C-alpha cells in the first residue's frame, strides 16, 4: 500500500468502450483490489443488492443513481479519485451506451489519457470504434486498450491477437499508437493489479501498472504564447486583463499583440493576491492577471501573443466536428461558435462528408449532420476569428457550437479557408505593426474629444438620400462639439485616384479604406456612404471593416421600402423616413456601443471604451 506518501502530481484518466464491455466493473475492481475504497463501501452496496434481490457487481460501486443500478448501465460520467504511488488519478467512468455519447464526450474531454475496454467475446463493436475516433478528436493521445472478459474465451491467445490486430489497425488510421493492449478479466481480477498466470503468453504490465506509464503533458509552456482574454477588471483603479495562458509563457516587459485587432502594448505587471513577492512571469495553464503600459482597447475573446507568432485570422475555417445536439446540424443555420473565450455567430458553409467510424475512408456526403455523427465541414463567421490549427495548438485550435442554450457540438480546426478579405487583412496587419505613432495616443484623443474614433457607413440603393442623412449627421455631431467629418469618396477620384482612370474599382475601394483608416487615426468620427461605388456595395463594407479594424464600423442601410430581404446592418431604415428620427437613432447606437460619451459626462463616463 502506498497511501502515506505525499501526492506530487494529478492526472485525469477516462475509461471508455462499448456498452456492457465492463468499464464500471474494471473501475470497481481496480479500487477493491488496491484497497482504496472507503471502509464499508462494498458492504453498503452488498446490502442494497440483497435488499433488491440481485447479485453484487463491482460496477455498482460507482453507478450511483438508483436507475443506473436497476438498469445495470452507467448513465452519466462519474469522477472518482484514486491515489497510487505519488500520483493522484481522477478516473472518469464514461457511459458506453450510444444514447449517452454526450456524457462520454464530456468525461473524455477532461482526460489526459484513456483506458479503452473491448469485450473479448464480442470483439470490436460500433462504440469501440466511435469512442476511439472521439478520443483522437478530443485530444486524448495516450490510449491503453484492455481486452476484457478474457475468462469467457478461456484466456486464448489467438482470440486476443485477432482483436489486437483489428483494433491496432483502426487506431493507426487515426494516428494513435496504443501504449499497451492488455488481456484481462475485471470480474475475475486477472491482470488488473498484477499479471496473473492465466495469460502466460502475455508479457506486458497489469492495468494498474500501465497507468504509471501515462505521462503528464507539460509541453504547452514550450510552445508560442497563447493568452485568450477572459475579462477586463477595474478593481482599485488598476485595469487588469485576466485569463488563462493556454500555451507558452509571458513575462513583464513582453510586447503583446492582440488578435484579431492587431492592437499592441507591453506587459507592465503581473497581478496576484496573497503572493509575495509578486510574480514576474506566467506559464501555460495558469490563470493570471496582467496590466499593460498603454490603455489600448481590448476585450474578452481577443488572443494575446508575441508579435512574431500570431494566430491565424479568417472568417472561414475547415474543421472536423462531432455533433451531439438534439436537432441535426444544418447548412445555412446560425450557431454560436465559442473558441477559447471568443463567442461569435457562425453558419455552416459546407458539409464535405460524414465520417463513418466503421469505415474511415468512406466519403458520403449529406446536407445535415445527425446527433452523434462526426463530419468534415466548413464554417463561416460573421466577423474575423483568431484561431490556430489543432495540429499546432490544442486549445485555440478547437471550438464548440452552441445551439439553443446548450453546447451541442465540438470541433477541431484542420485548415484556414482563405476568404476574399485575406489580402486586405495581411495589408492591415503589416501596416499596423510598422505604424509610426506620435506621443498622443487614442486614449488621450478620446478623453479630449468625448468619443472614440469610429466609422458610420451608409449603404443602400440610389435615391434613398444617403448623402442627405450623412450631411445631417455631420452637422448634428459637430454642433455637439464632436470631431466628425463627412468623407465623400467622390473627392478621391480627381486626386488620390487620378492615376486609376476608373479602371481599377478594387484598387479604388482599397484606397478609400486606407483613407478612412487614416482619418480614424486622428480620433475622428468618419461619416461616409457607398455612393461612389455603385457596383461594389457588398465588398466595400467588408473591406472598410478589414482596413479600419479594430475601429468600429457602424453600418446603416437605407432601403427603398420594407419589402424583401434586408442586408445585415447595425441599423436599417426603409422607405420615406423622418430624418430627425434617423439621426437620433444613429446617435443612440453610437452611445450604446460606447463610442460617444454622454455630453455632460464626468471623467468616469468618458472611460467608456477602455
Amino acid at each position, binding site marked *: 500500500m502506498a497511501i502515506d506518501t505525499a501526492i506530487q502530481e494529478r492526472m485525469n484518466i477516462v475509461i471508455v468502450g462499448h456498452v456492457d464491455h465492463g468499464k464500471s466493473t474494471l473501475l470497481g475492481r481496480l479500487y477493491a483490489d488496491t484497497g482504496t475504497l472507503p471502509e464499508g463501501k462494498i458492504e453498503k452496496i452488498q446490502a442494497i443488492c440483497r435488499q433488491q434481490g440481485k447479485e453484487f457487481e463491482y460496477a455498482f460501486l460507482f453507478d450511483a443513481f438508483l436507475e443506473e443500478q436497476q438498469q445495470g448501465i452507467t448513465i452519466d460520467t462519474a469522477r472518482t479519485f484514486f491515489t497510487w504511488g505519488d500520483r493522484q488519478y481522477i478516473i472518469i467512468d464514461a457511459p458506453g451506451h450510444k444514447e449517452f455519447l*454526450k456524457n462520454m*464526450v464530456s468525461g473524455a474531454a477532461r482526460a489526459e489519457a484513456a483506458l479503452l475496454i473491448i469485450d473479448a467475446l464480442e470483439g470490436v463493436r460500433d462504440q469501440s470504434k466511435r469512442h476511439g475516433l472521439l478520443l483522437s478528436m478530443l485530444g486524448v493521445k495516450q490510449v491503453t486498450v484492455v481486452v476484457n472478459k478474457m475468462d469467457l474465451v478461456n484466456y486464448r491467445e489467438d482470440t486476443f491477437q485477432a482483436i489486437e490486430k483489428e483494433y491496432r489497425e483502426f487506431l493507426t488510421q487515426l494516428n494513435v499508437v496504443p501504449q499497451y493492449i492488455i488481456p484481462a478479466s475485471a470480474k475475475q481480477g486477472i491482470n488488473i493489479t498484477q499479471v496473473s498466470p492465466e495469460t502466460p503468453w502475455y508479457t506486458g504490465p497489469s492495468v494498474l501498472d500501465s497507468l504509471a506509464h501515462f505521462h503528464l503533458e507539460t509541453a504547452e509552456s514550450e510552445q508560442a504564447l497563447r493568452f485568450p482574454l477572459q475579462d477586463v477588471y477595474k478593481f482599485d483603479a488598476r485595469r487588469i486583463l485576466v485569463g488563462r495562458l493556454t500555451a507558452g509563457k509571458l513575462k513583464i516587459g513582453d510586447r503583446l499583440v492582440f488578435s484579431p485587432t492587431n492592437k499592441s502594448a507591453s506587459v507592465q505587471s503581473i497581478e496576484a493576491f496573497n503572493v509575495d513577492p509578486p510574480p514576474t512571469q506566467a506559464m501555460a495553464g495558469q490563470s493570471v492577471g496582467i496590466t499593460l503600459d498603454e490603455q489600448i482597447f481590448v476585450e474578452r475573446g481577443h488572443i494575446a501573443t508575441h508579435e512574431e507568432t500570431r494566430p491565424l485570422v479568417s472568417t472561414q475555417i475547415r474543421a472536423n466536428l462531432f455533433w451531439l445536439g438534439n436537432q441535426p446540424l444544418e447548412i445555412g443555420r446560425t450557431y454560436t461558435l465559442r473558441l477559447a473565450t471568443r463567442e461569435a455567430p457562425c453558419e455552416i458553409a459546407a458539409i464535405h462528408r460524414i465520417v463513418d467510424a466503421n469505415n474511415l475512408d468512406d466519403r458520403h456526403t449529406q446536407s445535415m449532420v445527425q446527433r452523434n455523427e462526426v463530419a468534415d465541414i466548413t464554417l463561416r463567421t460573421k466577423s474575423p476569428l483568431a484561431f490556430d490549427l489543432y495540429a499546432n495548438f490544442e486549445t485555440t485550435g478547437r471550438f464548440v457550437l452552441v445551439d439553443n442554450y446548450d*453546447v451541442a457540438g465540438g470541433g477541431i480546426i484542420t485548415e484556414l479557408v482563405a476568404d476574399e478579405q485575406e489580402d486586405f487583412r495581411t495589408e492591415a496587419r503589416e501596416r499596423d505593426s510598422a505604424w509610426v505613432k506620435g506621443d498622443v495616443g487614442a486614449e488621450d484623443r478620446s478623453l479630449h474629444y468625448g468619443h472614440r474614433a469610429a466609422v458610420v457607413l451608409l449603404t443602400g440603393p440610389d435615391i434613398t438620400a444617403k448623402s442627405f442623412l450623412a450631411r445631417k449627421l455631420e452637422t448634428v455631431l459637430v454642433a455637439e462639439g464632436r470631431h466628425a467629418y463627412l468623407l465623400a469618396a467622390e473627392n478621391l477620384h480627381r486626386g488620390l485616384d487620378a492615376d486609376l482612370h476608373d479602371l481599377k474599382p478594387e484598387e479604388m475601394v482599397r484606397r478609400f479604406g486606407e483613407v478612412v483608416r487614416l482619418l480614424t487615426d486622428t480620433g475622428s468620427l468618419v461619416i461616409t456612404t457607398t455612393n461612389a461605388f455603385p457596383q461594389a456595395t457588398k465588398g466595400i463594407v467588408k473591406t472598410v471593416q478589414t482596413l479600419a479594424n479594430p475601429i468600429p464600423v457602424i453600418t446603416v442601410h437605407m432601403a427603398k421600402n420594407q419589402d424583401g430581404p434586408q442586408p445585415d446592418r447595425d441599423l436599417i431604415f426603409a422607405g420615406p423616413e423622418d430624418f430627425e428620427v434617423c439621426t437620433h437613432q444613429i446617435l443612440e447606437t453610437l452611445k450604446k456601443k460606447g463610442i460617444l460619451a454622454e455630453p455632460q459626462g464626468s471623467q468616469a463616463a468618458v472611460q467608456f471604451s477602455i
Partner: protein
Amino acid sequence: MKHIRQLEDQSIYILREAYKNFDNLGMLWSMGKDSTVLLWLARKAFFGHVPFPLLHVDTSYKIPEMIEYRDRLAREWRLNLVVGQNKKALAEGMNHEKGRIACCTALKTEGLKLLLEEKGYTGIILGVRSDEDATRAKERYFSPRDKNNDWDFRDQPPELWDQYKISFPPGTHIRIHPLLDWTEINIWEYIKLENIPFLDHLYLDQGTGQRYRSLGCAPCTSPIKSTSKNVDEVIIELRNSKVAERAGRAQDEGRGMEQLRKDGYM
C-alpha cells in the same frame, strides 16, 4: 504542491467565467472548510475583492462558533453577506426529530429555494466536491436547475473542455461547482499552503481526542475520534483513513443524498 496550483488555476478560471457570464450571481458559504476555500479562491480570482454576495442558508441549528466566525470574516474581508432562513418552517417547529430528510428539505433545500426566489439569482456558486458522495461525482462544473430547482441528472448538457453552460432559459438557474475536482486532502493542503483562517476549534482536536471532519447542523453532525492538532496531522490522518468524510452526517444514510440532491439540495 504543483497539483494544488493546477486545481487553483482551474477553479479561478471557473469563478471568472461565472462572474463574466451571470449578472445575478451569489456564492453559498456555510463557513465549512470547503466553502471557505471557495471564498478564498474568489479573493484570489478578483484580487482581494469578492464581487458578488455570499449567501448563508441559516437553519438556526448551526454550531454557535460558526456564526461568530462568519460575522468576523464578513467584517474583515468586507463581504456582502446575505442570510436566508425558512422562517415559516421554523415557526412551525421544524427540527431533525421530525425526520432528517424532512428537516434538511425544509430548512436547507426550501430555505435555499426561498432565497433564490426572493433575490432572483441566476447563478449560484457552491463548494461541492466529487469525492463527497456518489451523486456529486456525476455533477458538471456548470449544472442547470429547472424552475423547481430540480436536477435532471438523466439529461445533463455536454461540457467540453473549458466551455461551460452559460446560457439558459428564463426562470432556470445554473449551479456552479469550482471545487468539483478537489478532494478532502486537497482542501487541507490548500488551507495550509495559503494559510487560510478556518474554524480550528472545531476542525482540530482541542485535547478531547475528537474533532469535526465535516460541519453541519449541531444535532446531525458528530465529531470523529482524532488526535490531529494541526493541519499537517489532519492531512496524514486523512491519507491513512478509509472512513468516508460524511460518515458523521446523518442525512446521507441510505439513498438520502440522491433524493435530496435531485430536489435541489446542495
